[in-house]
Structures are given as structure tokens and as C-alpha cells.
């Protein structure tokens, strides 16, 4: 009795999650969750805390290993049937992550490196890019997120908004096809959230596929192509923002949205 989330008309699905199950110490957190996201889409995941939206997001790049179900990104699939996570699985996860960038609530910038080095590290280490091209790419990304002037500073000296924009630039440095955001503005002062959201809107305009776990209802409503409402490890309802906010199909969705409107 679940809302199946099919790809919309904008293009073929680049992210597919099928029947994901995950429990922590016997407590089910994801209970057969499925979602398809089309290339270029921006999908927001909303729902009460503890509904499993962060866990679901982390399953999409296998930071969290689902117990059962299938995750595909850009044609690379990892299928789980409840067995041990082996070396072959890890290698497949590695291939899958190539197409995914992630941004965390707490930024998680590398404290011992400058902003520029933070952005250059993965291209240098993972993609084995030589120093100069990696640097050029990093500088271009810093320019894009408006941080060219702080390239040589250490993360701890930046504002939260600057740090999160640097984290977005870092995630983009390996040229992912999908970006995941785990409550990207929850740790920020209200006046700093807009600069981060502006970057995400810009990426949306550039055609990036983005999946955002958020409590920012105004952003979700204004920027999302679709919004998924989650509860107890399932997607209860998924729809375009206008119809979800104006006319929620589910009583729980209505009750949840009432808090924000």
C-alpha cells in the first residue's frame, strides 16, 4: 500500500531504489522503500525525524549498507539479499559511488587541509589527476560557489555557509552525476542558509540531479521537481510541490505539512 515513485516525463531514471530494507539492532528503519529519480530532477525528502530519510539517502551511495533491495545509480547496481558484505560488494559500491557526490549536515570538511586542498584531494587521490588540472578544476568550482577569495584558508576559519558551499564544491570535484544532501542547511544560522540554497538552485538550472533531505519547506516547495513525504521507513506520498502542498492525498502528509504552513 505504498506510493510507487515512477520517473517523470523529464527523462530516464538515473537513480533507482527498489524495495530497500534496513534495520538497526532489530529496529526496522527502512521498510521496502522504492524511488526512481530522473536525470536533472531535484527531489526533496521530507518527513518527521526518525522516519528514515537520512538512512535512505545514505543507502543511495552505500554509506549505509541496506539489508535487502537494490540501489542503482547511472547504470551501476548493488543488489542485497541479506548476506555478508564482501570484497566484491565493496568494489561494486566503489564503482557506484563514482557517480555520486554527498553533502553533510555538519560539512565534514577535512580540518587539516585548506579549502583548495579539500577540493583537490579526491581528484588527486581517487581519480589520480595531476596537480595542475586538479587545481584548475578546484579553482573553477570555488569560483562557481563564490569562494575564490578563501581558497587558501582553513575550514575552521570560515562561516558555516562558506563551509557548506566549500563542501558542495568538494563533492562536485569528482564530477558526479547525482548529488545527495543530508539536511544541508540545518546547522546554519537562518541568514546563511540562502547562500547555500542559491548554489543548489544554480546546480539545478545546470541540469544536476539532486536529492535533498530537508526541513526547509519553502526551498522544497520552490525548487523541487517532486517532494516525497516519508514516514516509518516508507514513502507515503510523492508529488509535485504544488499538488502536495495544495492537496495532500494522505492524512499524515496533511498533518505534517500543517506544522510548516
Amino acid at each position: 500500500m505504498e506510493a510507487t515513485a515512477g520517473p517523470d516525463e523529464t527523462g530516464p531514471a538515473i537513480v533507482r531504489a527498489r524495495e530497500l530494507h534496513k534495520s538497526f539492532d532489530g529496529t526496522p528503519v527502512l521498510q521496502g522503500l522504492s524511488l526512481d529519480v530522473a536525470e536533472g530532477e531535484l527531489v526533496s525528502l521530507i518527513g518527521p525525524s526518525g522516519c528514515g530519510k537520512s538512512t535512505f539517502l545514505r543507502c543511495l551511495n552505500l554509506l549505509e549498507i541496506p539489508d535487502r533491495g537494490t540501489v542503482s545509480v547511472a547504470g551501476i547496481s548493488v543488489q542485497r539479499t541479506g548476506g555478508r558484505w564482501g570484497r566484491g560488494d565493496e568494489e561494486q559500491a566503489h564503482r557506484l559511488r563514482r557517480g555520486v557526490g554527498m553533502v553533510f549536515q555538519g560539512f565534514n570538511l577535512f580540518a587539516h587541509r585548506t579549502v583548495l586542498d579539500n577540493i583537490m584531494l579526491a581528484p588527486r587521490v581517487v581519480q589520480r589527476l595531476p596537480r595542475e588540472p586538479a587545481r584548475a578544476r578546484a579553482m573553477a568550482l570555488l569560483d562557481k560557489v563564490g569562494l575564490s577569495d578563501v581558497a587558501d584558508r582553513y575550514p575552521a576559519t570560515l562561516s558555516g555557509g562558506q563551509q557548506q558551499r566549500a563542501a558542495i564544491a568538494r563533492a562536485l570535484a569528482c564530477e558526479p552525476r547525482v548529488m545527495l544532501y543530508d539536511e544541508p542547511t540545518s546547522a546554519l544560522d537562518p541568514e546563511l542558509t540562502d547562500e547555500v540554497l542559491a548554489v543548489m538552485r544554480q546546480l539545478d538550472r545546470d541540469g544536476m540531479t539532486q536529492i535533498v533531505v530537508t526541513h526547509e519547506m519553502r526551498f522544497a516547495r520552490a525548487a523541487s521537481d517532486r517532494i516525497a513525504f516519508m514516514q516509518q521507513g516508507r514513502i507515503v506520498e510523492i508529488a509535485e510541490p504544488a499538488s502536495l502542498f495544495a492537496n495532500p492525498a494522505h492524512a499524515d502528509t496533511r498533518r505534517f505539512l500543517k506544522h510548516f504552513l
Partner: protein
Amino acid sequence: MRWLPALCCCLLLAMPAAAEPLRWGADAQSGAPYVFHDPAEPSRLTGFETDIIEAVAHRLGRGPVMVQNDWDGLIPGLQRGLYDAAIDGIEITPEHRQAVDFSIPYFRTFEQIVVRRDQAGLDSLAALRGHVVGTLKASLADRILQGEPAIAVRTYDEETNAYSDLALHRLDAVLLDWPIALYYAAPDTRLKLVGAPVGDLAYGIAFARGQDALRGQVDQALRDMQQDGSLRRILQRWNLASPQAVGPGLGITVPSSAWQHYLAATAPIPGLADRLRRYASFLPLIARAAGLTLVVSACAMVLAVVLGLILAVTRRYGPRPLAFLAMLYVEIVRGTPLLIQILFIFYGLPGLGIRLDPFLAGVVALGLNYGAYEAENYRAGLQSVPLGQVEAAVALNMTQMQAVRHVVVPQAFRLVVPVMTNDFISLLKDSSLVSVITLTELSSTYVRLSTTYFDYLGTGLLIGAAYLLLGLPFVHLARLAERRLARGVGEARR
């Protein structure tokens, strides 16, 4: 000129015997008059046993080469083959005979009672009952005293300590081998030698079991030296030709020049200038010892840092069996004394076919030991790096090893640098333990100099200063590194 080729042949035939040196072991810190460094010229080896073994080597046509070893390690060193023979006041006793073979005695003597000048009556074992008597640990005198239940015995590592405790009224008497009493107590105006000889003992040159050919040659040389009076002349030069030592004489007498030289060199120096000149003469010795201390410590620290990092990473990120082995290693090494580990590696491992030279054994022992402590240090550092840092690295598609190497270890390193500095300074001091495996570093140089000159204060200050000078640059370097590594985090706190 027809005889020239024949002469050359003779010389060539004589050559092989001279080529192989006679390696002899002794502890130059065990003091006068046995084998010790000339107080007037600290880099020169002297002593009546040095003279005897050099004369013996000469008679065997072999060049003598002295190998320094801790006195307690002399017999194990023979068994390990560090040298061919050991000579250092080693008493011919049934206990020693169980471990090594002896030459014929080259010197016979007795135990001598020494008391303070103002004391009277304490001139026999019977008279010493009810009193406190000092002697050297595990010596024949010690065994004689232990046989007298009414005597309270205090044992010492250094004879000078026993005699100074006697002068300071901490002891009522000291019982020690007569040559020791002659060289350390007789020149001291606060003390006097009293009573008849107690017991008798014989010193022999010790060999590892099975060295019968060499032992036979040495015995023959010693007998020849007794016959022609050269042994007696050596003892006379050292003022040691007592009737017990040499038996009926041959009527030859040479002046006790070595004894006079010793008295002159160790006489208390009244003037400050002379005193400073003497300290200046120590400096080359101290510099050489400090160099060894530094090189051993630095090499050991490099080993410890690398090993510690491998252990800590294995323990935290490795597969379970390896992580368990790493933990086991740390627990075993931390749970056993460093001294035992050094002795085990140097004297024990050859039993398994692993022979390390003293320097390498010292570096390996210290490095393996400190590696365990560094591992614990790094483990704490690794644990303190927030989990989010690894998650971010994995999300960027780094492998676990790449994340550890580029993200976790550099951040952990910054946290452990202050502790590492501490450890290095502590290692610098612990390196004194390698003196038990024949390495003459700073601490053993202190023992040597202070016991030679009865000067614990001045030489102590010199050696202490040497340790401080060695440690200071590293403290400074570590502060610099700390500041460099703390960039970013440090700035945020400001």
C-alpha cells in the same frame, strides 16, 4: 742476498698467527686495579689484568682487542662468542666452573677488612658480629659474610659506594678483595685496612666450554710468565705482589710505578683550575658517548614511529586476526621490562639463530619496545578523529586505506606530536640500558668516570648537562612541528 727470500718465507709463515687478534672481554667500569681507564688519560685502557692479558696475547703472537661488556654479562658474552676470553677479577669458584672453563690462576689474594680510622677492635670476622658490613653483590666476600648470621650485610654494585658509606657512618666495616681495598680504601685518609687475611681466592681467565686448545696455550703462557718472573714484575708495578699473589720470589724487584701513577692521578685536586682542566679532559669521552646515545635513540625512535603506526592502524582497521596479533604484541611488550627485552634480544635470540651486533640489538630492542607505546599513543589519536571525516572521504569514493592515509592519520598525528616528544626524551634516557650489551653510552660513561675519580657530583652535572643538551633541540623541534600541524584548528580557537 740469497738469504732474503728465506727470511721472507719465515715472516710469511709467522704472519697467520699474528693476523687473528685475541678478543678479550672485560668491564672497564668495574674499577681499579683490574681493567680500567687511566684516570690521567681517560681514553687509555690500563690495569694489572690488562697488562697480563696483553702479555699473554703477545706470547701467543696475537694482537689483543678489548671488548667492553657489563660485568654481569661477561660470562653470557663468552657463551655468545663476543670474545675469546674474559678477564676481570673473575673468581675461580664451583659456581663459575659450571658455566665456563678457567685457565690456571694468574693471581691469588684474600678478603680485606676496612674500617674507619677512628675505629678499634673490628679486625676479624668474629669481631664484626653484631655490626653492619658492606660488600659487593654476589662476590666471594658476600658469601663469606652471609655465612655469619650475626652480621648484617649490605651489598653494593660499586665498591666506591661501599667505602663512601663506611666513611659516612652508614656501615661499620667493608669486606672486599684485597686489591680493591688497596686501591679504593688505602688512599682514603678516613679509612684503614685492618686484621688478618680472610679466606682466599684465585682469579682465572675464563673461556667458553670447548675452547681447550686456546686454554692450553694461555695456561702455557701463564706458566712461562711465572717462570721468567714477568708476571711478578707486572704485579710489582701495580703494588700487588703480596706473598699470596706470587708465592716464593725470584729476588727481582721493580718499582710500583703503576700504583704511584694511579695515586697521583686520583689524588684529590685542590685547585678549581685543575679541577676544570680534568673535566675538560672528560669532554671527548662524553661527546663520543653522547653521540652514541643520540644515534641509538634516533634510530630506535624512527623504528618505533613506523612500527607504532603500523600496529595502531592494523589494530583499528585491520582484519580481526591481525588486529588481535597487534593487540597481543602491545600487551606483551608493555607488560615486560625493557632490560629483559634487551638481554633477550642480544643473548637470547642467538639461540634461535638470530645474531645481532650490539648496536643493532640495542636499536631493535628500544624500537620494538617504544613501538608498543607509540601504537597506543596513535590509537588514541586515531580514535579522536571524528567519524564524519572518514564518511566524507568514503563519500568522495576513497577506499578505507586512502581515507586512513590522507584524512585520518594526518589529523591524528597532530594530536600525538606532544606525546611523541615526551616519549623520545624518555627514550633518550632509557637508552642507558643498552650499556648492558657492551655499548658505552652516556650513563655508563658517568659510572666509569665517577667511580674512577670518586667524583659523583662534578661528573654527574656534566653528564646531566649532556642529556639536557641532547633533549632540548627535540623539544624545540616538536614545538615547531606542533605549531605547523595545528594550523587551521588552532586558528579557529583564536
